[in-house]
């Protein structure tokens, strides 16, 4: 399992101004019928894109973008990891938004996609900037928790525990979890239901 340090992401951004974008919209369920994540990026917002001729994801001005600015409660609903996988495989390396749903945020962390949270006003400014001047190069600085363009520096919040893991390159938790397997056994032995209450545990 390879893992890498994530300190800084520089590039263009796709603006997604709507709030409450759920994972059914990011990757409709019929695209979950696969035994790999390969090609899942083709499903990214595909139903919306079909019904919206000028969808930001298809706008040639945003071609090559590696970040996305989103509204409130992004990634709500279904726990499908297909949603962050589609974003990542499409080329999105970081998202900045007003707020993110819990499971979605956990999934993004698990696959090494940082999420930055900013105030609604600041996010609106970022979205407007990306809409009006799509060639703008934004700079997301994980260590200093900022996103900047030109002279403008906007503070973002990155959950401390996750930020530390991105900077240290330890966001792939599996190695960590596996190194504690002996302690796992010990905790299991003290939980009476693990033996279906056959023993007088504890």
């Amino acid at each position, binding site marked *: 399992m390879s893992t890498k340090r994530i300190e800084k992401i520089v590039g263009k951004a796709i603006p997604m101004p*709507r*709030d*409450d974008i*759920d994972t*059914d*919209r990011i990757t*409709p*369920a*019929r695209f*979950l*019928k696969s*035994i*790999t994540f390969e090609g899942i990026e083709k499903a990214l917002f595909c*139903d*919306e894109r*079909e*019904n919206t001729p000028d969808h930001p994801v298809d706008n040639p001005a945003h071609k090559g973008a590696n970040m996305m600015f989103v509204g*409130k*409660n992004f990634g*709500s*609903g*279904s*726990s*499908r*990891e297909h949603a962050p996988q589609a974003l990542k495989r499409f080329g999105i390396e970081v998202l900045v938004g007003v*707020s993110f*749903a*819990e*499971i979605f945020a*956990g*999934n993004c962390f*698990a*696959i090494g996609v940082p999420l930055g949270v900013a105030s*609604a006003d600041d996010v609106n400014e970022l979205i407007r900037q990306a809409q009006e001047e799509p060639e703008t190069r934004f700079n997301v600085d994980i260590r200093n928790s900022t996103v900047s363009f030109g002279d403008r520096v906007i503070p973002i919040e990155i*959950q401390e*525990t*996750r930020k*530390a*893991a991105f900077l*240290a390159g*330890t*966001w792939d*938790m*599996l190695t*960590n*979890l*596996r190194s*504690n*397997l002996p*302690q*796992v056994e010990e*905790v*299991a032995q003290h*939980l*009476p*239901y*693990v033996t*279906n*209450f*056959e023993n007088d545990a504890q």
Partner: protein
Amino acid sequence: MSKNTLYDKVWDSHTVARLDSGQDQIFIGLHLIHEVTTPQAFGMLKEIGAGVAFPGRTMGTVDHIIPTLSQIRPYEDEQAEKMMAALEQNVNEFGVRFLHLDSGKQGIVHVIGPELGLSQPGMTIACGDSHTSTHGAMGSLGFGIGTTEVGHVLATQTLALNRLKVKRIEVTGALGPGVTPKDVTLRVIHDLGIKGGLGFAYEYGGDVFDAMSMEGRMTVCNMSIEGGARIGYVNPDQTTFDYLEGREFSPEGEAWERGLAYWRDIASGDDAEYDDVYEIAGESIEPMVTWGINPGHSVGISQPLPEVNSFSGEDRNTAEHGYEFMALNPGESILGTKVDVAFLGSCTNSRISDLREGAQLINGNKVHPGVRMLVVPGSQQVKQQAEEEGLHEIFTEAGAEWREAGCSMCLGMNPDKLVGAERSISTSNRNFIGRQGSPRGRTHLGSPAVVVSSAIAGCIADPREMGEQA
């Protein structure tokens, strides 16, 4: 910070280590797996050459992609067949227990967990499905995870997690006639909002929950995630114990007595402290139905649809989008809105009590000729029980379709889907755009009673008025 709640006790007793990241490594007591969110996770195990750490704490079944009409193999849908075959191969290779179609115990993971006594109080329960919060009804901590995390549980039986805050939701008094647990959960989401639960576990309590059946508690806990709360639970009590006793995986004899002691002990103490408390008077809850594009867009069935400017700044855009997409207008009544499809099923409302309630209301009536109605039991055991009680005949005589167990029309991953701009009234949990399989399909959520009364009327109808006619 919360203290001495069930959440705190279970969290502490399941903590393996504090990780460098600052997260806690938490032991998972029960891991439920299904065909959709596991193939890549098993792939990960193969890649690193690991096995399943605690195969005896894992149980698999198939629910999302399974057709509810003809289940003859190979499935017509090649992709569904491929996923099924991958799951069969993986559970064999890794030695994981699997409730297959021929077991008589297959069903939606969140129906079979409690039904078989697999889900018990004081456990941590994870599954690659957001509605794992359902198992909180048993007095456990159930929560949904993504596929990478499924891999973590398979390989280590643990997860790296951040501790949540605990919000107590107290529903006092009693529910009025025709008002059901589904209405309680829609009202909670309506009041606290779809992001109100971000960062929280919900503890449900109060007179209404004390008096509620286990199935009803499952309906409420199921939709916690729709309010943003990854976990929702009810403290275990005599109702829980009575439900558990005698189930296949429940302890027996002396072990049962030890189980009882553990379960009583794990409940929130009288001195428990919460990060927040929210109270609703049971009497103030009406049958609820959604009008928009998320589960927070709901209204008491007799109330006019809310004005757009009743939403605060940020939510106004979503509300406007909701009205536009659903072709409805503020100020109108939701009653009388024509529906094409009525769906009674899903992990929210497909248990025997839901089917009994539906059958009782539909008995002697007919599904409106303009409506296609699907009744889909949540498990093979629920189906069998319903058939022993003759419920299937009541539904089919009324003109509804009686199907095999599965997720069905909740999510558009199997042949049961809306077509074009069809409008449905559904007992499922999500009215998101495209959720029921058609990008233009329109979904209204409601209780089994609302779905049945609407199926008969051909339009959204108040079950309380139907009762008066009968």
